[in-house]
């Protein structure tokens, strides 16, 4: 029996799964806990509706946007999870960090930068390019508004092709976070045509 060739979408999902596994490992290391990948899904950018992806809750969340050429990423923590991750990450420097304005947003921007770099490393290897993340931009508010804000960057340029939604969970302190990857058609094409070897974690 011949095997059906993998679709570009299946290749991208596989690549993203490999990347978000590394994100979960980094999040675990920096929060002294275990994080698992709970959900990975891919949808067409044209049909993306923030309410469908993120629900309609008005609960406050901490979001961080990071861009790359041809795409971008959102990391979103619910308020309580963000607070707990912040405390765990800053254990060694708790007092000076407490004095920072917007403590959680500032800390979670750095946390997001660290974990998304693990995903970017996998994508860079796959497409044979160097990918440098832009500086993290904190966005606070209901999850739907955070996503809307990120989507606006792409829909204005009419470039968004695919959105990948990922949920990470930790049983260690009952928390979760959402990762959203935005890919334009050119980046999607590059990634789906260039599966490479895994990047060794340093």
């Amino acid at each position, binding site marked *: 029996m011949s095997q059906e060739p993998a679709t570009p979408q299946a290749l991208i999902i596989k690549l993203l799964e490999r990347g978000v596994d590394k994100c979960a490992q*980094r999040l675990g*290391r*920096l929060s002294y806990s275990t994080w698992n990948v709970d959900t990975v899904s891919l949808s067409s950018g044209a049909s993306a509706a923030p309410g469908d992806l993120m629900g309609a809750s008005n609960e406050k969340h901490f979001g961080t946007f990071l861009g790359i050429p041809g795409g971008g990423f959102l990391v979103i923590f619910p308020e309580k999870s963000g607070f707990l991750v912040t405390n765990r*990450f*800053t254990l*060694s*420097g708790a007092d*000076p*960090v407490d004095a*920072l304005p917007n403590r959680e947003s*500032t*800390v979670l*921007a*750095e946390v997001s*930068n*660290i*974990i*998304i*770099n*693990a995903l*970017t*490393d996998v994508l*860079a*290897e796959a497409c044979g390019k*160097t*990918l*440098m*993340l*832009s*500086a993290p931009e904190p966005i606070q508010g209901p999850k739907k508004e955070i996503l809307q804000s990120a989507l606006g960057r792409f829909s204005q340029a009419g470039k968004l092709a695919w959105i990948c939604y990922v949920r990470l969970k930790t049983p260690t302190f009952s928390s979760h976070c959402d990762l959203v990857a935005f890919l334009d058609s050119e980046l999607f094409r590059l990634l789906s045509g260039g599966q490479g070897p895994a*990047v*060794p*974690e*340093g």
Partner: protein
Amino acid sequence: MPLRIMVVDDSPVSRILITEMVREAGHQVVAEADSLKGALEAYQANKPDVVTLDLALANEDGRAILTALRNLDRQARVVVISGNSQSKVIDEITAAGAAGYLIKPFDQDDLLRALSRFSTG
């Protein structure tokens, strides 16, 4: 012998954590900077034993800061600290004269190990 260290990072959180980790081990942070201009001025004013440098600052590329520091002082010892573990980037940074490369997240032991080769006592 305690090291005199300069920390270049646009994240106040990273600057605080690095500073706390090295101070606990008896080293001294003599300057902090979050930009190319600030890094060059602080380096000339303080002549640190070693610089820790973030790779991606808000408005500047850490690679440019590494090059500028090395142009200012060929003996400058710069340890790049970044979440980026792309092999091409690490190769490029090493070729540009970085004395070390530490991948985030790291703990105090990792940081002190990266700095230990510069201790003279």
